[in-house]
């Protein structure tokens, strides 16, 4: 209340306060200068009054006007008056005005010395604080000289608030009055260990700045700073200290060594950040910077760290950010020039991965690898001891496997058979030999096509001349392959001498393309009945066998079996060791693809490379391999390309604009391109991790031969209605894809076939046994949906949906929703309503696919289910985003609830005799196929297994996830008699069977 009264009386007393002034200026936009000049007149009047409050108010207004650019130097003395007020309110304004308006040539400053000294020693810390703050802005050499002692005393003030200000202002004082430094320095040094972190960081700041000017004098402080650097958690302080060390290390080289560890820790943190900040746009630039560091790096450890980071960054999320794979291959090739790196394996695996998975790049990759092979001697000074020779493994394999792309296969073949190859590690030689054979077949093919037969014979002779070297190899693998191939070539030569054309047959040896296999694909292959994966095929070798003898394990079969009794129990350690060995073997095997970074770590840990002592050769100039491209040129090209694209786009946009003036208004102008604008340089076909699962699936007809009784198939149909907001372009795409729409992909998965699992399914008690997956695949407007359902217990179905974005825009905010029926419900996250959708937890850049899992609860399985659903998502284009909607239907057939379960004929007979089963029958019309095909089809599509087959009829059995028995008797007259304990289910299953056969 008192405050209000006081404030009111002040307001009345003043003509204008600061707020009024500001408001007034804002209201007089047209005649600002005139308005302000009247204000200044008023202020001059106010300053003439004795009342300090009025003066302070006037000074406050002047400070504002000063900022607007008006000269207020005439009021300097009034400012000093306000500064000297005993009231903090006015003192504060006075010092503020002084700090804004005073400079070294302001003559009234010399009047302030005593006032400032008085304020510095004020019992009120805020008086002191205000004085120090003000002084920091207008300190002159005279003030510095006169007040140095007072400030020095303040450095030991009891209040940290004052101490830190005093420490900071000391720097200003030193600059203006250098003589003060010597007496003040010991106290300043003390402050480095001040208990208050604010004071401490202030002291660090001041000393760092001083040291930058004259580093020599501060060398003695290095240990203290080192301690601070390793103990401080304050980033601001750390930055200062590092800056200081930057000034100190040139003077004291020993410091550099000590700093390596803490600094590399910091650098690693920075590198980790890089990993997250790359985008399509900046990847090349960032990698270029890192490559520069690689060249400059002195320690091999740091260089290796950079190398792994480069590869990590580039390969993350399935090479998501790489737009130009030629560039990436060039980077990898450049990395091979690193002497003494431990990560040859890593580079090799990347080369293999890219060459296999990015088809479009193969021609380029092969050319690069051929050059690499040709220059192998440059790469590998001391071959055995150099981890980088691992890349030759990849190079040889790529050149062999994709030899049809080689420009000069003969030359590469020659390079692969050089005597020096025999000094490479055994596993690499083995790959050389094998791929030399592949190359040989390619060369033969080309030479036989031409007129001269002698060339082909010469090639054979070359093989025959060179291979014996490998036959003598100490490495068994090399020896075996070489002798095998040598004999083959000798035989070929014989045929050639009889002028028989052999090239076709030789190339048949290596025919067929190797497809990449996703890491998870193996899981999808069913385990054949009776195969126990956990049982040993051969007993493990005894512990006493040394590592060197390990290759002999290949021939373990031939070893006497006396060790068996001793090793029936295998301890955990041994298992782990074997697992490790297996992993390593897989790492060396190009047919295993390891896309995830975690598995790449395996390479680094492989003992073979780790334990090789690394020779450190520090080359200041990186080795340049002749004929290899520099990755930099891609950066340039890329820039040019993007620029061109941008220009093209602009042109197009202009055109478009002309065409339809009234069209949409929102468009980027010349602003910098967004991430989505960048199109890949060549359309590369990256096989994503999920793809092989569908792609390598055998067609149903193949499957007939190998089908196991444990498989289950479930079809989902998604029917697509037209979506709204169609653009012309999209419509075209859609029409094409519409044709594929009904295409069904069949998935084949396994489930546990042991009795325990069945029981748990029945009771619905045990949660997760091996899930029973269900699948479908079809092409939608924008994506391929691939649904894999998992039937866990009697009532739960897990559906995995794979979304693949086939359009050129980013898809985001996807929401998957279905209309629940009484029987089937989508399980939604806790707290969401029954109509909320399932938010797909990722976005989809073009060409990327990802998987989401949905859980459904199903009560009754006797009837087929159709669930209506919608998928909403936002299509983000270059210039706009559209909300799109797709309607679909999820179709759970009754067949999908059946599990192929084997049944013995006696049990089957008992079941039929029990009399609990209801009977039904059906006739299939117009089915003209062999009886065994018919049976196989029923097995395949409807998850039955054949119990017994007698001439003209067969009995079949299957079982539902809720434990219903379904028995069929199929006759060659194509009639089916069926029995089941649930008539509705039976009826539906029979209908579905009928449906299957009516379609073919």
């Amino acid at each position, binding site marked *: 209340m008192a405050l209000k009264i006081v404030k009111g009386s002040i307001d009345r007393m003043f003509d204008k306060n600061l707020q009024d002034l500001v408001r007034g200026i804002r209201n007089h936009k047209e005649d600002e200068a005139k308005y302000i000049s009247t204000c200044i007149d008023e202020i001059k009047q106010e300053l003439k009054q004795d009342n300090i409050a009025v003066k302070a108010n006037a000074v406050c207004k002047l400070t504002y006007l000063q900022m607007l650019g008006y000269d207020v130097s005439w009021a300097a003395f009034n400012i000093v008056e306000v500064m000297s007020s005993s009231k*903090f*309110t006015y003192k504060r304004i006075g010092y503020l005005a002084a700090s*804004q308006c005073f400079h070294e040539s302001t003559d009234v400053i010399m009047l302030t010395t005593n006032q400032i000294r008085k304020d510095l020693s004020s019992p009120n810390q805020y008086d002191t*604080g205000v004085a120090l703050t003000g002084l920091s802005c207008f300190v002159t050499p005279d003030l510095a000289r006169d007040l140095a002692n007072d400030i020095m005393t303040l450095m030991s003030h009891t209040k940290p608030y004052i101490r830190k200000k005093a420490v900071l202002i000391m*720097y200003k004082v030193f600059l203006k009055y250098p003589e003060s430094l010597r007496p003040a320095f010991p106290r300043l040094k003390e402050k480095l260990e001040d208990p208050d972190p604010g004071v401490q960081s*202030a002291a660090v700041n*001041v000393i760092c700045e001083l040291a*930058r000017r004259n580093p020599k004098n501060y060398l003695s402080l290095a240990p203290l700073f080192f301690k601070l650097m390793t103990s401080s958690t*304050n980033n601001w302080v750390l930055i200062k200290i590092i800056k200081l060390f930057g000034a100190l290390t040139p003077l004291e080289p020993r410091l550099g060594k000590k700093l390596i560890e803490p600094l590399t820790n910091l650098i690693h943190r920075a590198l980790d950040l890089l990993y997250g900040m790359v985008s399509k746009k900046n990847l090349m630039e960032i990698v270029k910077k890192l490559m520069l560091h690689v060249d400059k790096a002195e320690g091999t450890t740091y260089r290796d760290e950079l190398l792994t980071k480069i590869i990590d960054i580039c390969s993350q999320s399935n090479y998501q950010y790489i737009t130009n794979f030629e560039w990436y291959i060039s980077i990898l090739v450049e990395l091979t020039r690193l002497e003494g790196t431990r990560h040859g394996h890593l580079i090799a695996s990347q080369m293999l991965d890219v060459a296999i998975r990015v088809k479009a790049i193969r021609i380029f990759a092969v050319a690069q690898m051929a050059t690499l092979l040709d220059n192998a001697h440059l790469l590998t000074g001391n071959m055995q001891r150099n981890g980088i020779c691992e890349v030759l493994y990849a190079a040889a394999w790529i050149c062999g496997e994709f030899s049809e792309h080689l420009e000069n296969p003969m030359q590469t073949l020659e390079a692969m058979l050089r005597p020096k190859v025999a000094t490479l590690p055994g596993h690499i030689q083995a790959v050389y030999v094998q791929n030399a054979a592949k190359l040989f077949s390619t060369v033969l093919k080309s030479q036989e096509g031409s007129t001269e037969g002698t060339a082909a014979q010469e090639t054979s002779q070359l093989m025959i001349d060179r291979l014996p070297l490998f036959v003598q190899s100490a490495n068994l693998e090399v020896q075996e392959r070489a002798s095998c191939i040598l004999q083959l070539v000798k035989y070929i030569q014989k045929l050639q001498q009889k002028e028989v054309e052999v090239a076709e047959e030789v190339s048949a040896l290596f025919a067929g393309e190797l497809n990449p296999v996703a890491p998870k694909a193996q899981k999808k292959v069913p385990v054949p009945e009776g195969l126990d994966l956990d049982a040993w095929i051969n007993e493990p070798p005894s512990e006493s066998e040394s590592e060197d003898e390990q290759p002999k394990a290949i021939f373990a079969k031939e070893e006497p079996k006396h060790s068996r009794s001793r090793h029936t129990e295998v301890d955990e350690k041994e298992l782990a060791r074997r697992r490790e060995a297996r992993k390593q073997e897989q790492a060396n095997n190009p047919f295993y693809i390891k896309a995830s970074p975690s598995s790449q770590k395996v390479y680094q840990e492989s003992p073979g490379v780790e334990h090789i002592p690394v020779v450190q050769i520090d080359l200041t100039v990186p080795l340049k391999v002749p004929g290899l491209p520099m990755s930099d040129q891609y950066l340039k090209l890329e820039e040019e390309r993007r620029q061109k694209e941008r220009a093209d786009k602009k042109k197009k946009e202009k055109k478009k604009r002309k065409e339809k003036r009234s069209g949409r208004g929102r468009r980027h102008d010349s*602003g910098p391109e967004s991430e989505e604008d960048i199109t890949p340089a060549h359309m590369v076909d990256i096989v994503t991790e999920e793809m092989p699962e569908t792609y390598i699936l055998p067609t149903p007809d193949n499957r007939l031969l190998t089908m196991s009784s444990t498989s289950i198939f479930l079809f989902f149909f998604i029917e697509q209605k037209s979506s709204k907001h169609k653009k012309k372009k999209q419509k075209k795409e859609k029409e094409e894809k519409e044709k594929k729409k009904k295409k069904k992909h069949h998935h084949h998965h396994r489930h546990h076939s042991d009795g325990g699992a069945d029981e748990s399914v029945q009771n619905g008690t045990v949660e997760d046994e091996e899930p029973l997956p269900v699948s479908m695949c079809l092409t939608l407007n924008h994506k391929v949906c691939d649904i894999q359902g998992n039937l866990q217990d009697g009532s739960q179905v897990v559906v995995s949906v794979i979304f693949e974005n086939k359009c050129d825009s980013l898809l985001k905010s996807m929401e998957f929703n279905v209309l629940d029926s009484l029987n089937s419900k989508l399980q939604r996250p806790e707290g969401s309503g029954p109509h909320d959708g399932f938010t797909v937890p990722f976005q989809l850049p073009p060409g990327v696919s990802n998987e989401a899992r949905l859980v459904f609860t199903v009560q009754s399985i006797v009837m087929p289910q159709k669930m209506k659903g919608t998928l909403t998502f936002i299509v983000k284009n270059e210039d706009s985003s559209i909300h799109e909607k797709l309607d679909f239907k999820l179709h759970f057939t009754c067949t999908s609830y059946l599990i192929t379960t084997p049944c013995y004929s006696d049990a089957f007979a008992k079941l039929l005799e029990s009399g609990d089963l209801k009977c039904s029958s059906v006739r299939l019309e117009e089915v003209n196929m062999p009886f065994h095909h018919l049976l196989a089809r029923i097995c395949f599509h409807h998850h039955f297994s054949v119990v017994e087959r007698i001439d003209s009829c067969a009995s079949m059995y299957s079982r539902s996830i809720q434990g219903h028995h379904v028995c069929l008797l199929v006759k060659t007259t194509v009639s089916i008699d069926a029995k089941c304990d649930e008539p509705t289910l039976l009826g539906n299953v029979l209908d579905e069977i009928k449906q299957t056969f009516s379609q073919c």
Partner: protein
Amino acid sequence: LKTMRFMLLFSRQGKLRLQKWYTATAERDKKKMVRDLMQIVLARKPKMCSFLEWRDLKIVYKRYASLYFCCAVEEQDNELITLEVIHRFVELLDKYFGSVCELDIIFNFEKAYFILDEFLMGGEIQDTSKKSVLKAIEQSDLLQEVSCIQY
């Protein structure tokens, strides 16, 4: 040789809202520098880099709503930490005024200065703790009210 030479706050319309000079500069030079710099910074597109080299200085600026925060540092200084300083200052203003806007700074410009002075002194960071800076300001404000009542 100073960490920070000056800090400017100006609006999109080119109106100066706050200026703090950490080295003594003649009034005429100040005016010219402010004018030139505002012209350069305001002409830059939103996606352009926050750092630029200007005369012998490095300019670090960032736009918050309608207000540009602009700092000049020495060439060998770190731009990123300067950006961090700017942001910390904005955070302080925001805490003090409660979701700060340009008008807060226009009408309470002396308060904005007080906050800046508690945070930076002579171009050096005084305290990296937001809490302790705000505490000092609150205490001083309290003192001001008390002396007001006494009056």
